[in-house]
């Protein structure tokens, strides 16, 4: 049963929201979500790459020979990732500094390659666009929410644009464990658990 284009878009927001449902692309999820701002920035960068590579892969799907398709996907994805990297350096330099190595690492993010292989290579341009946009926004939401939880408890602040907003006031003692790497795993696990709890009802 074919889904409508709207359904292709919305499936990325809940049914197949990447880190929580597909459990893919965990490397940036765990590493960059120390603040909300980092999460959103990383998510948007990934979304851009996803949409562009999905469109290009889907429009070239008749030309690309099956045997070298992965090589072609990687060329396309790597190109867009480098574009994002350069553009971020030129316009949002502070954010680029915080995300650092994780921007080039979008190339090896399984979500991007996975969508090219599993979806864009078999579907039309409009559908691929909707799919990429949906998955990308879902990824951004997931990163932002994880970043929000970790930053809120780990630092007592929420950073949306450059300036951290104090939420709990100055007497708050930050739960530093949350912004450390093990805290990321625990936090992700608890959020997965919550999602399953909500989803199972």
């Amino acid at each position, binding site marked *: 049963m074919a889904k409508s284009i709207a359904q292709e878009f919305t499936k990325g927001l809940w049914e197949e929201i990447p880190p929580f449902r597909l459990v893919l692309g965990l490397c940036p999820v765990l590493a960059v979500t120390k603040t909300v701002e980092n999460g959103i920035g990383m998510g948007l960068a990934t979304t851009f790459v996803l949409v562009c590579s999905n469109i290009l892969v889907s429009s070239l799907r008749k030309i690309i020979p099956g045997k070298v398709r992965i090589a072609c996907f990687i060329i396309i994805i790597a190109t867009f990732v480098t574009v994002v990297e350069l553009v971020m350096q030129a316009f949002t330099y502070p954010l680029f500094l915080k995300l650092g190595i994780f921007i080039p690492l979008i190339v090896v993010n399984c979500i991007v390659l996975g969508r090219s292989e599993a979806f864009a290579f078999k579907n039309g341009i409009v559908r691929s666009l909707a799919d990429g946009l949906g998955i990308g926004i879902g990824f951004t939401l997931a990163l932002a929410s994880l970043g929000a939880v970790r930053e809120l408890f780990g630092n007592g602040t929420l950073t949306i644009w450059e300036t951290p907003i104090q939420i709990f006031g100055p007497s708050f*003692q930050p*739960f*530093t*464990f*949350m912004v*450390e790497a093990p805290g990321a795993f625990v936090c992700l696990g608890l959020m997965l658990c919550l999602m399953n709890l909500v989803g199972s009802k």
Partner: protein
Amino acid sequence: MNSQKKLIVSHAPFLHNGSKISERHLHIIYAALPAILLGGLFRFGIPAIGVVCLSVSTAMLWELIMNRAMQRPVSIGDGNAALIGLLFAMLLPATAPWWLVITGTFVAIVIGKQIFGGIGGNAFNPVALSIAILMVSWKDFFDFNAMLVNYDPDFIMAYPLAALKNFGVSGIEKYSIGDFLVGRQSGGIGATFGIGLILGGAYLMIRGFIRWEISLAYLAGVFVTAQLFNLIDPVHYADPFFHIFTGYTLIGAFFLATEDSSSPVNFIPMLIYGAAGGLMTVLIRNIGAYIDGTVLAILVINLIHPLLDKIRPKAMGKVV
């Protein structure tokens, strides 16, 4: 391979002493009471009572919430949550703020125990896990010198292990083992009163509620390692009795290391498990960056416990 295994009846290790889980936990709580009542509540007064009550009640509350959330039968009645809350409170300074206690019992019950499937499923001792996470996050609240600054008793109130860390052996000359035994030292609510802890531990070992092998091997590990350090360099490293009667050593040996699901069940593994814990404790105290290594050492031996369980008697009739 699998079909063969099903038919083999092995003779060991089945540990059973005829008591119910709730009865066991009740007895462990009894055993912990002298240390808390005489060492903690008597010494530190009202704030200590507050911390203990809050810790026990929130631990049980988290257990109830998790039972409800996971749609399982309510398991507060087995006393495990209350025991975790009590042991957790015993390790805290008497002036711990309310949110520290609540977060701590949350980590212990939810992340330490219930996530692994409730009682018997936890890979780590929930209390040690919780204390370790809190120590990493809020170092200042585990600095007993700063936390207990408002108490002014008739004995030296500086935290013995901190004195050792900062000043070496010359810093601890003023302390006496006798003081440690009767609880005239600074530390966690239930961790200061040496005789109380030893009596509680002895009671549990005689009744068979905890395994004497683990506790004694743990203390022996601490003793031997500390003795070796002391022999090599008596200026920097304190004598073994100091290590045994300060910090969390006694409570770790009798109440934390012996926790059921995170400790081995056979004789040799129990000895290795305990001795490794003692070794790690002294290593962290003498060489590591932390003042007291007991909870971290217990987490480390919890990690090696599955490996130790591989050492076991050969099953009868099993062909290799």
